């Protein structure tokens, strides 16, 4: 039924001829060399590669956490990597959702506060307080969805790895993003828990048509996505349809 909502032809987010190098002392270490990737709206793709192949860097560039040396990042056909910092901050807040390998929850905040963090960033003190109850309800809904509805007021240190990752996903979903960027979301979890997380991502993609870009080094996990982009030494090696 979702095929209607997923016209595979329409490019949602794309990287065009991206070059990126890091400076290590006086040495310039190229990470990405002329990478072209595009993802259609509602697509779930995996970027696979060895450690150091540049897959995380590619994801950071797509999510505007970093700027390419050359090339462009486009969202719905518009270039976004050269926008003013303030606009890029807004895009990260509204359009992209990030999930990291190490969950990256803020230890000072409770679970529900972590999930609410994107909204806190978007709204000032007064407008946040004004809509506090609506936001709390929204957070509760999302946490229910990822199966953490009963642990709202726990600190991240009191949660297991799987729970933390689910909380991180809930946080990424809080601002109803268009694109979810997941950097090794299962990398730190055992295979069973990792499988659960993956199932969650799949269902988000299928049920809500969320565009997902997942970085992994694990071929088995990559198989769950619709398409795999293989990176070797900073170049696209092959594009393949997942099973």
């Amino acid at each position, binding site marked *: 039924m979702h095929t209607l909502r997923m016209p595979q032809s329409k490019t949602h987010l794309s990287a065009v001829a991206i070059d990126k190098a890091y400076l290590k002392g006086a040495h310039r270490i190229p990470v990405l060399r002329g990478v072209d990737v595009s993802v259609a709206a509602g697509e779930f793709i995996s970027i696979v590669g060895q450690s150091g192949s540049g897959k995380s860097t590619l994801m*950071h560039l797509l999510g505007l956490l970093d700027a390419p040396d050359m090339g462009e990042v486009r969202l719905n056909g518009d270039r976004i990597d050269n926008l003013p910092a303030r606009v890029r901050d807004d895009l990260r807040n509204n359009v992209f959702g990030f999930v*990291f390998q190490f969950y*990256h929850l803020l230890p*000072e905040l409770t679970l529900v506060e972590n999930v609410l963090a994107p909204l806190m*960033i978007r709204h000032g*003190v007064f407008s946040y*307080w004004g809509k506090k109850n609506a936001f709390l309800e929204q957070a509760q809904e999302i946490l229910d969805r990822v199966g953490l509805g009963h642990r709202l007021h726990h600190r991240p240190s009191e949660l297991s790895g799987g729970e933390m990752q689910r909380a991180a996903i809930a*946080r990424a979903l809080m601002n109803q993003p268009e694109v979810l960027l997941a950097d090794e979301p299962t990398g730190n979890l055992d295979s069973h828990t990792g499988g659960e997380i993956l199932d969650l991502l799949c269902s988000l993609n299928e049920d809500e048509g969320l565009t997902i870009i997942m970085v992994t080094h694990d071929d088995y996990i990559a198989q769950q996505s619709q398409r795999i982009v293989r990176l070797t030494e900073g170049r696209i090696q092959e594009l393949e349809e997942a099973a």
Partner: protein
Amino acid sequence: MYKLILAIRYLRTRYIALVSIVSVTLGVATMIVVNSVMSGFATEMKSRIHGILADMMIETTSTDGTHDPVALMAEVNRIAGDYIDVMTPTVEIYGMMSFDWAGQTIHRPVTLIGIVPESKNRVSPLAQYMLTRQDLFDDGKLIRGPLRAINDPLTWDLTPEDLQLRREMIEFQQFQQRVEHEFRPQNAGSGVTPVAAEAPAGDAQFDSFLQPAVGSSADSTAEAEDTIVDPFGPSTTQRTPSDPAAPMAARVFLGAGLVSFPYKDRETGGTHMMYMVQPGQDINLTTIKTGIPEPARFKATVVDIFKSGMSEYDSNLVFCNLEELQYARGMITGPDPTNPHQNLNWKDGEITTLQIKLKDYKDAPEVVRRLREELPAAYFSVRTWEQKQGPLLEAVEVESAILNVLLFLIIAVAGFGILAIFYMVVVEKTRDIGILKALGATSEGIMSIFLSYGLALGIVGAGAGVTLGLVFVAYINEIETALSTVTGRKVFDETIYYFQEIPTVVYPSMVAWVSLGAVLIAVLASILPAWRAASLHPVKSLRYE
């Protein structure tokens, strides 16, 4: 919103940062305590100076004074009458005081001030410092209560107790004189050598000048007889004028420092005050006449001893009745040429100073300006009491300013502690900063987290400091007592400072400025770490676990 919540959470969870602001707290508390005590001392000192001096004074350039005080007062009233509450005429002149004590004659340089007590007391509340109006303590023990009420009008009357004392003293002295008179011829006869004969003669001359003190010799009694202008009111009118115990026409209030000294009792170890002159006794005063400076001598009865707490005044000033000082200096004569010492009125004489109390001291600069403009500058100088005591007040001010700078430097040093610890916190929070940026936080937002964290730390530190400081000030005397008990040494010696307890004054504006300064330093110290946090690259901060 996240800035607020994170700043508050950091404040509650980073105890090391709270430790770093302990120095701010201590600095603020110290500044408040020091400032309160210093302004307490300063205020106390000012009120004491003010209690002796007037709001402002018009002084004649010459010590001979101006011959028409009534006209001067009318002129002053015309110029600035709207601002003036009370005026009192005075004569100020240098002089010497001498009295006998323990078989020796003691001389003291003094400033003689002739006053009209009723109006002087309204210009500067002198009466409160008089010892007859206070409890008298010796070594911490009450030895007598006040002999008269503190609000009694200030007059030249002796208290009945002092009058009785005077009577007994004079009777004893007369007895002594009689005895001496009876035995002297034999004594004089025994001294045969010319040198020996000269010596007693010299003594006698010396004695007749200084010793006759308490109305002893015949001539002084005679003088007392014809000069008394009924100083005791109706109750004493029936007293015969020849009463040898009648006080002199000239009466004085003496500064306590002139006639007293503390001494340690070897047996008990306590400190006692020794008064060499008691009210009721007579003293000799020497000053100069107007015109060619000829010495003017007169005897006066001590009516009271005052202790203002300003040692400069207590060991220098002698207040005398104005008319008698004018008469002694030749500034006045009575209406009856055959008896010029009778029915004196200061209005007919000359005065050197006009002391003025203003309705509102805030008007002082304006009044000074007007008076300076209109009064001839060659003859009159117009000054406020602050200008007259300028160097002293300035010294106190400079002292407190330097102390404030030094103490504020302590808080500034604390600022560097905050900076170092903040830097550490930022490094520790590198990953969180990356997350926040990934979630869309702006660099300014990140910066303001740490700035508001610094602000919050500053407020907590300053708040704790203010509380600590104010509590310390409120209980400073109890703390002093406790410290004295623990160390066994007196931290604050009342006899040195004249205060029963440590005076303190807390100005809210001072507290506000100190805490504002401390908060500002905390914020300034957090700028560099906050800026570093803001400029962290999100990817670099996220990459490594």
